[in-house]
Structure formats: C-alpha cells, structure tokens
C-alpha cells in the first residue's frame, strides 16, 4: 500500500508541482478546444493562438515565481 502510494505520488509529481500552473495549462487547453472553433479564425490561426496562450502561461508563471 505504501509502495503504491509512493508510485502514485511520483506519477502525480511528474506532471504537477505548481498547482496553479498546471491548472492554467489544462484550463487553456480546454478553452482552446471548446471556444476557438466558435471564433472561426481559420487558416491555421487556431493552432497559432493555442501555442501563443501556452507561451503566455509559461512567461507568467516563471515571472510570478521569480518575483516571490
């Protein structure tokens, strides 16, 4: 049981160490998936906006961590 808990904790730790950062990534992916098609940008712009949002999340997170 203890071993299983260690493995699960390690697996969780592979993907999440800052909860807010992980939540922002998942939230943005959901938003990009569900909302971008409604905007009808077309011509590859959906993919570009998806990438730009992820870059913005990275920048916000490292600057927030450096500030504190």
């Amino acid at each position: 049981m203890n071993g299983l808990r260690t493995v699960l904790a390690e697996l969780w730790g592979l993907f999440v160490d800052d909860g807010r950062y992980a939540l922002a990534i998942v939230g943005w992916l959901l938003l990009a998936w569900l909302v971008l098609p409604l905007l009808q940008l077309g011509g590859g712009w959906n993919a570009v906006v998806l990438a730009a949002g992820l870059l913005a999340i990275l920048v916000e997170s490292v600057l927030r961590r450096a500030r504190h």
Partner: protein
Amino acid sequence: MPIDWTHAGATVLAAFLASLVECVEALTVLLAVGATRGWRSALAGGAAGLLLLLLLVVLLGHALARIPLHGFQLVVGALLLLFGMRWLRKAVLRAAGVLALHDEEAIYQRKTQALRGQRGAGPGLDKLAFAVTFKSTMLEGLEVVFIVLAIGAGRVELLWPASLGALAALLLVAVLGAVVHRPLARVPENTLKFVVGVLLCAFGTYWAGEGMGYAWPGGDWAIPGVAGAFLAMAALCVPWCRRLASIGAQESAR
C-alpha cells in the same frame, strides 16, 4: 507506414536528451549504493528495475496502438505539455538562479553518507542495496518511459525512433559510468533539461493542436517553429527572472 524524419529526428533527439538526464540521476544512486553496499545487489536492483520498465513499454506500446488517434493525441499532448512545461519552468528558474541547480556530486555524497549509516549487509543479497537501486531506476525510468511513449505516441511509427534515442542514452551513461566510476557531475544537466523542456513543449503543443483538429501552418514543419518560439521566450525569461529575483532580494533585505 514509412517514418517521417521531420518528426523522427526531433523524436530521437528529445528521447535521447531526456533519457540522458534521467540515466545520469539513476547512475549517481547506483554508484553510491555500489560503493557503500557492494556492486552485486546494487546492479541486481538496477537490472530488475530496467526489466520491469521494459515490460511496461512493451505492454503500453501495444495498448497505445489500439486507441483512436485524435482523442489520444489530445490526451498525450496535454500530458506532454504538463510534463514539458514543468521541466522548462524549472530549467528557466534554475538558469536564472531562482532555484538551486541539481548537483550530482552533492547528491552522491549525501547518499553514500546515509547508506554508510545503515546496518551492514549480511551474506547473500543485500535487500537495502537492491531496494534503493530498484526504486531509483524505476522512478527515473518511469519518466523516460512516459517521454518515449508520449513523444512517440502521436504517431505509433515514431515509438521505435523514440525507443532508440532512449536506449542510446542508457548505453552511453552505462559505458561512461563503468569507465569513470564517478557521478557524471560535468553533464550540463540544466541545459539539457532546458532543451528537452523546449522539445517536449513543442511536441505537446503540436499533438494537442492535431488532437483538437486544428491545421498547423507549414504542417509538420510547425514543430521546429513552435520549438523556436518556446526557446526564444524561455531564453528571454532567464535575465528577466534574474532581475526580478534580485529586486525582490534587495527589497526584503531593507
């Protein structure tokens, strides 16, 4: 299906570099255990961990080939992004001096000291040595397995190049470890993590976009483009974070 080398080259590189980082970390523990508790049990634990990981790759690899591609690309892309963006964030903060760098030599010293404090091994298999190297190989290896499966899984034919990259890293670290018998402290681990983080983010973004059904400008060539954007942004953040951290330190010193 023939291998597309736009993907395969980046896949081999990402799997090789990511595995190199993890293998170096596992080697440090193996060396510490071997030097203090004996090589037989340390190597047996490492080998048992590797066998279990191999089994995991074979089982999961077969299972992945049966899952519908679009939904799968989205899930794998999301997981790769969570994983890769965590690595890249940490690498940026370490490069900026906000977080401490990973020091293999210090970890080796700490491990050997802790193991020397334990009771001596009796005849036969040393359970402690076996358990420590087994656990370390498993945990570091799990990351390698995830990376190989995730970057290869967007297209199943890429699993082979990804596995080859990981295997090459394992062999290289094993040979270097056997020759130098010291932790590979001179491997620029944070630089490797920075590069791997960038590559994983690029693959994750690409697979997630494909999974959502979005067309990428330039098709497969969007991967190096997205990687370039992540690299440029992360590199810009390093001096920016350094400045913010030093301002914060000055303010708290007042």
